[in-house]
């Protein structure tokens, strides 16, 4: 199976806005009032109905959050049933669910397999007890190990692990322990995120107060380069700044849709959607979301029509975060901008500096370039 999603087929994202406890670094929307789950699910079903004309087929489904693994088997089953009732999911549809290690046991995992969930993405973050405590994770390293092993035994053959590096007081040894532990399970996918703190998160506030500081540029660079080197040696493809796949077919098809300006429908509070140059997003409030839907309205907070210039900037930014890079002629065709000509001088300079490579009509970031992908997109 070739792992490139059909370009025009949309992706579906469902945001489950519930957590048992909020983690200090996370800026995705979620609440801890779990008793609202039934009302949320009722609203979600109605929201799907609202898009039955605008979207018809999805070849990736991503259940994210929040903590989707909080939901019961029955509740998840209802969601998938509703999706299949309204939309078409062709064979080979990539269905991903995010999970907290503490929520995973064999019966739940088997039930997920029975619902055709093909990818399990487990939020491990670290195997270091102190780091887990700092990040305010509610699971232990032992639970993480148990979750991965149980997922394997339940038949998952596409497991992704999320890890975080660049945590205050984390040294290289601690990070490499976590990384090698993760690799020892041979996961098909690894996401290694550099910790970034949004000002509104509880850790972000503590950081502003001066409780701690994040590692400096040089250490971040070392984390990044070491990680890339180790995972390369372990046979992983570094296909995006933070993402590694154990083979082309394990690259997250769903995420690639975001990076390619492929249509996506996002359901649930705070979810974003994109279609034909327009992006809209739902209210980032569960109550507002439910109220709007109960009033028969789409819970959309705002919509923007992107200008060609905005699309260019996004495409440049997203493209330069990926190994695949940017195909000059495709870029010119889609975004009406000839990068190779317009940016000839600076691209030459970046090539000389070893930050990008140009081959076969494609502009690709080198590893050093990926490390400063944000700046590359400002050329």
């Amino acid at each position, binding site marked *: 199976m070739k792992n490139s999603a059909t370009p025009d087929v949309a992706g579906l994202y469902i945001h489950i806005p519930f957590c048992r406890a909020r983690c200090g670094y996370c800026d*995705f929307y979620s609440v801890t009032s779990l008793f609202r789950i039934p009302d949320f699910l009722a609203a979600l079903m109605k929201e799907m109905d609202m898009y039955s004309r605008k979207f018809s087929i999805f070849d990736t489904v991503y259940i994210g959050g929040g903590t989707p693994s909080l939901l019961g088997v029955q509740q998840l089953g209802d969601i998938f049933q509703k999706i299949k009732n309204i939309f078409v999911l062709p064979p080979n549809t990539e269905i991903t669910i995010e999970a907290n290690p503490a929520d995973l046991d064999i019966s739940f995992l088997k039930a997920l397999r029975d619902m055709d969930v093909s990818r399990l993405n487990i939020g491990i973050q670290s195997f270091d007890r102190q780091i887990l405590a700092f990040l305010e994770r509610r699971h232990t390293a032992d639970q993480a190990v148990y979750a991965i092993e149980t997922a394997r035994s339940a038949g998952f053959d596409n497991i992704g692990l999320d890890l975080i590096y660049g945590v205050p007081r984390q040294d290289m040894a601690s990070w490499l322990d976590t990384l090698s532990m993760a690799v020892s399970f041979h996961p098909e996918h690894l996401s290694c995120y550099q910790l970034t703190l949004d000002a509104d998160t509880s850790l972000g506030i503590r950081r502003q107060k001066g409780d701690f500081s994040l590692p400096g540029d040089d250490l971040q660079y070392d984390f990044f380069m070491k990680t890339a080197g180790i995972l390369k040696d372990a046979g992983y493809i570094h296909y995006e700044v933070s993402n590694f796949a154990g083979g082309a077919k394990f690259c997250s098809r769903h995420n690639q849709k975001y990076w390619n300006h492929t249509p996506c429908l996002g359901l649930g509070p705070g979810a*974003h959607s994109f279609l034909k140059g327009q992006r809209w997003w739902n209210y980032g409030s569960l109550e507002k979301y439910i109220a709007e839907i109960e009033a028969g309205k789409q819970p959309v907070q705002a919509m923007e029509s992107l200008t060609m210039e905005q699309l260019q900037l996004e495409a440049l930014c997203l493209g330069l975060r990926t190994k695949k890079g940017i195909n000059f002629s495709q870029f010119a065709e889609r975004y009406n901008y000839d990068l190779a000509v317009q940016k000839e001088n600076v691209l030459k300079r970046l090539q000389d500096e070893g930050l990008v490579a140009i081959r076969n009509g494609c502009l690709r970031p080198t590893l050093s370039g990926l490390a400063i992908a944000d700046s590359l997109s400002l050329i």
Partner: protein
Amino acid sequence: MKNIRNFSVIAHIDHGKSTLADRLIQHTGIIDNRNFKDQILDNMDIERERGITIKSQAIALPYHARDGKDYILNLIDTPGHVDFSYEVSRSLSSCEGALLLIDASQGVQAQTVANLYLAMENDLKIIPVINKIDLPSADVERVVRQIDSELGLEPSGYLKCSAKEGIGIEDILEAVVQRIPPPKGDPAAPLAALIFDAQYDPFRGTVIYCRLFDGTVKKGDAIRFMSNNAVYKVEEVGIFSLFRKKSEKLSAGEVGYIIAGVKTVSDVSNGDTITHDKKPRDVPLPGFKEVKPVVFASIYPIASDDYDDLSVAMEKYTLNDASFTYQKDSSVALGQGYRCGFLGLLHLDVVQERLEREYDLSIILSVPSVRYRFTLTDGRVMDIDNPADYPDPASIIKTEEPYIRAAMMMPERGLGSVIKLCKEKRGVNSTLNYTSPGRVEFTSELPLAEVIYDFYDRFKTITQGYGSFDYDVIDYRESILALLDILVNGEKVDALSQIVHRDGARARGLMSCERLKEEIPRQMFKIAIQGAIGREIISRTTIPPFRKDVTAKCYGGDITRKRKLLEKQKKGKKRMKMVGSVSIPQSAFLAVLKTGHS
């Protein structure tokens, strides 16, 4: 006419001139206390914020004196900073007397002396006024001794006041009436009005500030400027009463304004004499010496698209500041701009701030320069203030630079360091004078270029704020000059080029490189910064590249947020100047020209 008094208040900066003017205005009751704003004569924001007066203003104060008679006291305000001494001189020529205001705790300072000399040149009656007597540190006795020994004035004739507390104000007004002579002049003689200022009013055109020495002028009169024989018809005359107050006529001895359809301030020259077209006066009044700019710098818009806005702003700005000169200039690094002449560094600061604030422009200034003189092999002598015009070194046979005589007054304990500073700045022919116990006056002849570099800030630091400084440009002297270029990644940034004394070139080059290193943010590639004279590299530093971005997550479809962040960064980058592939922020240009000793 015998009921008119024309007077001015002169003082060293911060000795309380504007506050005293406020009290005098309040005392005469022309504005009620509810409407009173502090420093009412300083009506530009920038004047009030910096506590300095830049443009002079006039105001007529009605006063009922102890002798039972009513007087009109024309108070003509003057600027207090050394850069603006020409404005002081202009104001003083319209007066018969001056209040010489001295801070009771600081005593006589350099500009007290400088302003006193200006007043003496104009034959004014001088009344010393000791201000701030309410301060705990006030030492009236000492100031009285200084009035005698340092100023050579009659020590018994002084007044005491606290402008802040409103103490002694009436005595001052009485002294103005009793001791300053009324103006002389003949209302029936041919008109002679001395122009001492002009301001632009968007509705009425140029408003001419003048003092009538002879004759009478009224609406409908045909008047003539004696310098160029331009003739205008008078539309309105009047006096200043906080705002302009129309009157039927202005007569000999009075201070007031004339509006006569003059389009711009530059059509009016200060010091010119206005007379009647039909019945002219034979000879003009003695004018003022023309003020020449001594400091030069180029101004560029940060965004090249803003050039037109800058042009409009410059044009408007000169309507109100005839001492500011400019002409087109262009830079490879910074694009189209203007080469400007200023009276001094403070004037430069004020212009920059007003352009940014009042016209909402973001501008970059090149490194300030003085005007150098070059004698070339073909015999030509060229005055050059712009490094871009620096002649081919092979064609130069002689280079000269302007010198000033700096007069510095300070407590004795700072003397050693000041002498050292002047020596470092190539000072010569110094003199020393013990003016009163513990205080010295030190003079030195210095290259003006050294003074505009970082002299003033260091002098203030050394003397802990107790030193004061005044200067006159005296002559040109031979000197060894060189053109220092700054290269960023091998490309010359012409706006950073400086004409320097050869001996100080290396130090200056190093400092410029270090300053730039501090201000230019690390970028994707290494940046080399070099100072060069011709092909010789004399200083060098490098900015290492950054290697890691904060690559915020871009997952879950919220790409809008990421894009907005990028758009913001892109906008910030647009506010930087691209030199080759290096983005240089405005602050870097400023850092090189801000020359304070670090």
